[in-house]
């Protein structure tokens, strides 16, 4: 709770300031709706918003899962072959300079209005952090321990599963946590340029009908969904790497817990 309190307080302060500004400045709520107005819109349009949210979440999860699978595979390959790594790594970095907003409409032209171009956009934004984290993670494997494994005649396969993969896990999870926060926003971006369902097109339509309160409501939903996904990954990470968190906490030193 100690960790949650400061950001919660800050959010409360910011939202209050927002409400105060809207109330005192006399600005029209169609231009800048206050937080209460946004909540009201969210409740009134929950049916439509939740339906679109599910659609967006499906795109985000599918795109993210594919990015994770292919990204992991790529990281393993790049780790395995230094030549491949030297060839591919710079291209990967360069690919990040391409604005996805520019590609998204092309994807619609190529793949149509259905779910495929959205999944591709999500994949594009999630892929990079996962590959980079994986490659760096594998490279972080301790050299002395690798030598120890070799002196025990461990096979390449054993070294991968029992040493390199666990060594890389903290890095891989960092990559996943970055990627998952991009995933929902990526799906929304994909929908924004053309879609039939989803929060992106919902925002687009709300804008066209001057319903700024609905835009805010949709943005709020996107933010909350992203945060929940982030928390989900964090929980999975805690379950997967209990040793990592005990280590970070400094660990109970031996002697304090002798049975």
């Amino acid at each position: 709770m100690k960790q949650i309190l400061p950001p919660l307080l800050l959010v409360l302060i910011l939202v209050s300031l927002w409400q105060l500004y809207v109330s005192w400045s006399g600005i029209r709520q169609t231009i800048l709706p206050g937080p209460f107005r946004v909540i009201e819109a969210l409740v009134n349009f929950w049916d439509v918003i939740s339906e679109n949210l599910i659609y967006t979440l499906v795109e985000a999860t599918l795109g993210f899962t594919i990015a994770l699978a292919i990204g992991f595979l790529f990281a393993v390959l790049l780790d395995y072959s230094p030549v491949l790594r030297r060839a591919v790594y710079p291209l990967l970095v360069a690919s990040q300079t391409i604005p996805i907003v520019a590609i998204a409409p092309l994807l619609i032209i190529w793949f149509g209005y259905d779910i495929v171009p959205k999944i591709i956009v999500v994949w594009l934004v999630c892929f990079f952090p996962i590959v980079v984290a994986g490659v760096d993670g594998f490279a972080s494997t301790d050299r002395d321990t690798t030598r120890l494994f070799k002196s025990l005649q461990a096979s390449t396969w054993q070294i991968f599963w029992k040493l390199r993969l666990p060594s890389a896990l903290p890095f891989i999870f960092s990559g996943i946590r970055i990627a998952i926060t991009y995933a929902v926003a990526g799906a929304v971006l994909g929908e924004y340029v053309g879609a039939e369902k989803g929060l992106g097109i919902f925002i687009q339509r709300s804008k066209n009908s001057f319903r700024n309160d609905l835009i805010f409501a949709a943005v709020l939903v996107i933010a909350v969904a992203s945060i929940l996904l982030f928390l989900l990954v964090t929980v999975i990470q805690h379950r997967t790497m209990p040793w990592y968190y005990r280590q970070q906490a400094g660990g109970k030193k031996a002697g304090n817990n002798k049975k």
Partner: protein
Amino acid sequence: MGPEVTTQGRITLNGIYKRYNDLEVLRDLNLVINEGEFVTLIGPSGSGKSTIFNILAGLETADSGEIKVEGFNFPPKKLFSYMPQRDSLLPWRNILDNVILGQELQGVSKKQARAAALAELPFFGLEGFEKNFPSELSGGMRQRAALLRTVLTQRPVLLLDEPFGALDAITRAQLQEWLGNLKQRLNRTILFVTHDVEEALLLSDRVYVLSPRPARIVLEQPVDLDRSGPGELVITHRFIELKARLLTALKSEGAI
């Protein structure tokens, strides 16, 4: 200790040469390690002690020279068990699963390996800590766990590369005494590397003093100390005499 370990005969290193590009590390190195003996290599940093270990552990090959092991064909894959300077415990495994690593990699079932390891934990002062992660243990305990892992690998010769080098003086003295007592029970041939003259004398049957790079043997000194006698060994006349002899050999080579 656990399942019986097959023993080897005398190990002989004959005229070993090793260089890394322009850096000559070993020049005509000759060593003998008898079965069941505790032999220590002592010498300045960077004198190639670790290179000798790597060659024996099969991690590197010598440029020339020959290594003979009676009753074994070199490179004997299952002869040496190597303990690196830092403990190299896997942070994601608890102590029990760390110490069985050697057996696990050789295909022994985890269940069987764990049972054997549990029986040994008390002798290594690790009883009750089998479920703890390495980060939860003190430096001394981690070194003992690493040694247990080395021992449980079930190979006849232990290669211990400065196992106590990174510990504080008090823990170090405790572990030296502990290993001295454990030695008999281990019943293995041990090749030990250290910078510490006293540590070498406390534990070894024989000490080789190495020169700075390229390493060769400056002195071969049998250690004939009565360790069972009363009083502090380190202040006995013979101990001080041997210590002086080793220090002189190190100094003569400009090692210290």
